[in-house]
């Protein structure tokens, strides 16, 4: 009976978003890989079979073996342990930078989309100007000028992401502005701040969430690329991009394992985040 089917169909749609996510194999795979790297970032030193910093100068550039699954690097350090522990740096910088960019970008996007007018136009031009350059070029310019530190990387990447996220949120806000509830609330005499953050924000939140997950992938991309270019945070803990930066010249000599394994680690983390982001986008889009 149709009467019996319709509610069940509706019920299925009413399921919480996380249940729908768990139904998707892409999400489960992505989340599993992501979880693995988070565990490594938190407990890396405890899991790693060797001390990632211990040098064995008699066993440098050894190919993968039973003792050293991913071989050893030019200082004789265990590459497998360095890959496990190396998840930490990138998983601290990238999410914080993305969070900063998302918070600022959402606030800016709300203001631009809701208030409109001359400010919207001016900021729009500024955003265009920043977008006329590949993000990595702008970030490189600022990082070269300011020097490298965890805080600088977070701030620079966060600020560069701000206009990009603002642009997306702005168009979502403009769509909301045409819906009936906005003039209705305005007729009730709500203030601008209330309108933006209490009335409109919850309705554009899915857009913000998708934007966050997608940008997180780009943040990882950016942090890794900067480290590869020699602009990685110089601290004693291993770092994938920096490990590649210091070992890739040896690729030509045939020592591929010291470079390839950190590279694959970066690729797996980014692909995992993409799988998660794609699933979130599909579920929220209905």
């Amino acid at each position, binding site marked *: 009976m149709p009467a019996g089917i319709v509610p069940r169909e509706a019920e299925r749609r009413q399921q919480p978003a996380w249940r729908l996510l768990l139904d998707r194999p*892409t999400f489960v795979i992505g989340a599993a890989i992501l979880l693995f790297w988070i565990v490594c970032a938190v407990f890396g030193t405890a899991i790693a079979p060797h001390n990632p910093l211990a040098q064995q100068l008699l066993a440098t550039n050894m190919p993968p073996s039973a003792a050293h699954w991913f071989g050893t690097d030019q200082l004789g350090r265990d590459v497998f342990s360095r890959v496990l522990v190396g998840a930490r740096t990138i998983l601290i910088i990238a999410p914080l930078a993305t969070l900063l960019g998302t918070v600022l970008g959402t606030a800016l996007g709300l203001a631009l989309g809701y208030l409109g007018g001359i400010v919207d136009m001016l900021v729009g*031009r*500024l955003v*265009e*100007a*920043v*977008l*006329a*350059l*590949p*993000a*990595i*070029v*702008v970030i*490189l*310019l*600022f*990082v*070269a*000028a*300011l020097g490298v530190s965890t805080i600088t990387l977070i701030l620079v990447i966060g600020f560069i992401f701000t206009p990009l996220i603002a642009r997306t949120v702005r168009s979502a806000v403009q769509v909301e502005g045409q819906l009936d509830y906005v003039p209705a609330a305005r007729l009730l005499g709500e203030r601008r701040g209330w309108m933006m953050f209490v009335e409109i924000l919850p309705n554009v939140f899915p857009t913000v969430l998708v934007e966050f997950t997608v940008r997180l*992938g*780009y943040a990882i*991309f950016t942090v*890794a*690329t900067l480290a*590869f*270019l*020699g*602009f990685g945070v110089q601290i004693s803990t291993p770092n994938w991009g920096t490990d*590649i930066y210091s070992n*890739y010249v040896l*690729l*030509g000599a*045939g020592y*591929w394992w010291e*470079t*390839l394994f950190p*590279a*694959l680690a*970066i*690729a797996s983390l*980014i*692909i995992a985040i*993409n*799988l998660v982001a*794609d699933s979130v986008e599909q579920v929220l889009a209905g």
Partner: protein
Amino acid sequence: MAIYLLRRLGLAVITLWLLSVIVFFAGQVLPGNPARSILGPLAAESAVKALDHQLGVDRPLITQYFSWIGGTLHGNLGESYQYQSPVEPLLQAALVNSAKLGALALIVIIPLGILGGVVAALNAGRPLDRIISLTGLSAATVPEFVSGIVVITIFSVELKILPASAAAPAGSSFLTQLRYLILPAIPLVFVLFGYIARIARAGTIEALESDYVRTATLKGLKRHVVIWRHVLRNSLLPTITVIATQTGYLIGGLIVVETLFNYRGIGNLIFHAANAKDFPMLEAGVLTIGVVYMVATLIADVTTTLLNPRLRTGVIR
């Protein structure tokens, strides 16, 4: 039409001006004291002052900006700190090299991306579509140096069939140069494939659902005729625009790829300038990239407008 072009050009000029302000700010204001960073912490204060004066950085910021932008507009991009020679010849040579690499990547990627997108659209919702879309998305967000390392490991280190460096010996033939550029082009192709395929897919799906395609199908045209004559023509239009906007990402990728493959292009130039804190070179390089990008977008916008009469009077996006 003329008014549209003029407005478009005007906006491009404003954007370029803003870009120059951003670049000036990052390159000349943020680094603080250029003479001190050139001479090092042990140099005498008088020497630092003298060099500051020689570099002109002791003048007010506004004066500095106008003399910098004035020089730039006259083609005088200043003198590189690291090479102690004018920036232009170095920049020009690098730009030519990058253009070769970029052109090769685009020649491969445009047909490939469009093909991927169209195939995905024709199989919309089926596993093949999901595979193409997710592969594209992943390839687009894996950093160029990661895919670069993978292809070097496979084709250069293990199979030994292609060189790991992009710099062909001086005076080598076109085919030799091409052989050296194959591996570096692959990471760039990876990064762009996803974007182009995605837009081509969206355009094709939209065209497939349109009334004119239904009419063409209903009047009995064969499927491949409908696709070639009606779907593709309309779906490729938005793809042109995207290809132009992606040149920016292509150039961003050049920094990494040229560094990895040791190729003397504009990306490598910017990379070395950033490392050496050679700000005149860095600013000139970044500004050049901005100009190239603006010109590419402008050409794309004009082409799209010329091809699609409906947009000629439309609002500027």
